């Protein structure tokens, strides 16, 4: 009987404790931290715990497409150039210097003789020639191969039929003259070519390792990279650990001794872990807690190279009418939406290309104008929305997309008097329906691949793989061709502006909503992380400020 009594009292205690603590929580002041946030414990030492937001699909730079992979490559691999952490200007990477021919078509790169793989082998021009041919090979079938299409013969090889492949491969415009010299020939003078070289599609891979281990070469026990850090551990779905690569040519710059990268996709969990001091840096935050997080001193926000918009199916009447599309655009009060719905500092999008690309100002023409919007709709034959069919706004299931859609729906109803139904589907279904133009209006987002307006503008050419709206304009297609071939940067900028103006003033297969921002939380002692529009932070510059 003694044991049962003890057990009973233990259980009673547990119950009492649980009740007490639930009451304590309910009445605790954490919901509205009036003053200082609770202090986070400090880790100490050159060690950093970072949340990357997702498990990498692979660590083969020629097989992946995602941002999480990119963040890891920023430690373990390096291209011919390397981005300046503040300005993103191409700095020497594996190439210590380069020359560009007068016509802008031939680049000669001189490889740094101190560049080494993490096993001590030298990095040579031949490594790059082999790697680029691999990246573009139809057998690898990289979804990002188009990043290298400015290279002469790249598209031809990448899309070649089996029989033509060996010939196309030999014709590719990349050639190692000797171990230290790489010559690259381009299709068109490509203004942003040097900044493409710090994209992972152009990163080198260690030939012997790839040939020995096949698909398994990316595992931690096999991986050979040429970055400032090496891949020490890859605990799937737990974390990735990077430690310094003592063979790296610029090893003296690197201060961090240990980088632990987590794949936590639940922003709430990551946020709690950050508050608890288990993480030092999180790359995103839970959107639902934005009001609370905005007051936290460790929160930061900066412009990002991304556009949030709606695609309009221009093949479906009445959306085939430009005036209707313009009315839909002018009836959206983007400023109010950013201030009261998204709330993290998103920038109202009155054009399509996000601000912040050096040397390009962009257009800003779609400001809120309810009176004109009403008139346009009336002119199109639907005064106060009368006779306008009920259309649907489709989005992939997500709380934040729902909030934006509800507000836009309301704005259209109140200003234009039209009824728009909301519909949400799971991600893959949403992709399928966008692709098949099985929608009226559909949510979309576009993140730039490289630092140039072209990454936003060339998608709208007739039947472009990412157009998906049915819209086209002969002059637009012509301008894209002209801008691709233009060597003079001032003339080129003019052409790009003309493109964006045409898209936003005469085309409008879209309703731009806002430009994305980066949102993060970072411990104040972490230095060397500079906000930039690509959210690119090479690990070699990051360090912990000692007390």
């Amino acid at each position, binding site marked *: *009987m003694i*044991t*049962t009594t003890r*057990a*009973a009292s233990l*259980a*009673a205690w547990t*119950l009492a404790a649980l009740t007490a*603590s*639930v009451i*304590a*929580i309910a009445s605790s002041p954490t919901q509205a931290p009036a003053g200082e946030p609770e202090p986070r414990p400090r880790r100490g030492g050159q060690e950093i715990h970072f949340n990357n937001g997702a*498990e990498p*699909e*692979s*660590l*083969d730079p020629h*097989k*992946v*497409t995602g941002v999480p992979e990119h963040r890891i490559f920023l430690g373990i691999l390096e291209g011919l150039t390397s981005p300046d952490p503040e300005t993103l200007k191409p700095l020497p990477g594996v190439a210590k210097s380069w020359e560009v021919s007068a016509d802008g078509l031939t680049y000669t790169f001189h490889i740094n003789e101190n560049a080494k793989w993490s096993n001590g082998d030298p990095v040579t021009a031949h490594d790059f020639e082999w790697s680029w041919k691999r990246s573009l090979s*139809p*057998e690898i*079938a*990289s*979804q990002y*191969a*188009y990043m290298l299409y400015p290279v002469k013969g790249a598209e031809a090889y*990448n*899309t070649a039929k089996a029989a033509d492949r060996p010939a196309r491969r030999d014709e590719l415009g990349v050639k190692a003259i000797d171990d230290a010299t790489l010559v690259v020939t381009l299709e068109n003078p490509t203004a942003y070519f040097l900044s493409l070289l710090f994209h992972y599609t152009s990163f080198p891979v260690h030939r012997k390792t790839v040939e020995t281990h096949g*698909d*398994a*070469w*990316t*595992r931690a026990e096999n991986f050979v990279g040429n970055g400032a850090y090496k891949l020490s551990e890859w*605990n*799937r*779905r*737990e974390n990735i650990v990077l430690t310094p690569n003592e063979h790296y040519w610029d090893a003296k710059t690197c201060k961090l001794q240990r980088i632990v990268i987590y794949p*936590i996709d*639940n922003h709430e*969990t990551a946020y*709690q*872990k950050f*508050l*608890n001091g*288990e993480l030092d840096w999180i790359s995103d935050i839970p959107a639902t807690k934005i009001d609370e997080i905005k007051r936290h001193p460790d929160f930061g926000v900066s412009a990002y190279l991304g556009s949030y918009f709606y695609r309009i199916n221009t093949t479906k009447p009445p959306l085939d009418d430009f005036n209707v599309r313009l009315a839909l655009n002018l009836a959206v009060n983007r400023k109010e939406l950013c201030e009261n719905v998204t709330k993290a500092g998103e920038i109202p999008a009155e054009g399509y290309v996000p601000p912040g690309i050096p040397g390009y100002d962009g257009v800003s023409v779609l400001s809120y104008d309810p009176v004109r919007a009403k008139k346009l709709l009336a002119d199109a034959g639907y005064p106060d929305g009368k006779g306008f069919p009920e259309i649907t706004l489709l989005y992939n299931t997500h709380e934040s997309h729902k909030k934006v859609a509800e507000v836009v729906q309301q704005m259209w109803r109140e200003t234009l008097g039209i009824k728009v139904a909301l519909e949400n589907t*799971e*991600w*893959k*279904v949403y*992709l*399928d*329906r966008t*692709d098949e133009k099985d929608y009226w209006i559909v949510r*979309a*987002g576009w993140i730039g691949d490289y630092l140039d307006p072209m990454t936003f503008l060339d998608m709208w050419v007739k039947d472009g*793989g*990412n157009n*998906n709206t049915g819209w086209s304009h002969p002059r637009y297609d012509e301008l894209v061709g002209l801008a691709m071939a233009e060597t003079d940067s001032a003339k080129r900028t003019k052409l790009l502006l003309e493109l964006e103006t045409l898209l936003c003033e005469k085309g409008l297969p879209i309703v731009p909503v806002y430009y994305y921002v980066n949102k993060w939380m970072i411990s104040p002692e972490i230095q060397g992380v500079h906000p930039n529009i690509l959210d690119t932070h090479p690990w070699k510059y990051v360090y912990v400020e000692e007390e």
Partner: protein
Amino acid sequence: MLRYILRRLLGLPVVLLILVTITFFLARVAPGGPFSADKNVPPEIKANIEAKYHLDKPLHVQYGRYLRDVVTRGDLGPSFKHKDQTVNEIIERGLPVSFQLGFLAAIFAVTFGVSAGVIASIRQNSWFDYGSMSVAVLGMTIPNFVVGPILVLLFARYWKVFNVAGWEELKDMVLPAITLGLPFAARIARLTRAGMLEIVGQDFIRTARAKGLAERVVIVRHALKGGLLPVVSFLGPGLSYMMVGSLVVERIFRIPGLGQEFIESALNRDYTLVNGTVLVYGVILVVMNLIVDVVYGYLDPRIRYD
């Protein structure tokens, strides 16, 4: 008994074949594919990708090929999403973690459930009885995606006893095991109490008491075996659910088990991984049920399998 087990085991391949076939075709019927993404690639590249994974072949050829690889070599194919891993490797890594979590949850559920149930039945209508049974009802009805975060808030954020999430230290297993085990502990407590109450009213217990045996001996040696019968029949589905059904708990606590792979493979249309995880879950469910049937026959003298 042996014949019965053999017969059941012989049925296993048939069940699994049906399961694999249905899963294979259902996954393919779902809209979207493993390689659809928000940035479209040129059609030639898409064709190359599909050729690489044999998705360009007719469906029945793909099915035949898949079945052949599974049956002859136990090869569940490459994952479409995790490009440097095979499905076999993912399962080999994830399953032990899920098992570990399920096992701990089961221990927690049985220990807590049985003790609470026994005590409640001994002290029927006492405050402990009412209290623990009310908590049990709560435990069964509150879903674990509510219990988990509450435990995190209490034990990780306020008292800082445990980490918020992760699977790195031993103590990281405590909160997930409790979260996963709680509804089962509650069910077990109620079943134990009911079973015990039924048994202690029976003649042989009165006889035992009349012999002058200590109450502890009466309960542990005589009543418990019969009183736990309903618990055992519940443990079959219960255990297999704890082993494989930790999907939500794995997500809340960031545990690298098979449950996460299962959910994500469906969302990613990672066909081979969907098939592989469903197959593994199928085997576990069938085997667990068989084990329970066998144990039941041993505990209850009224049941005979022939």
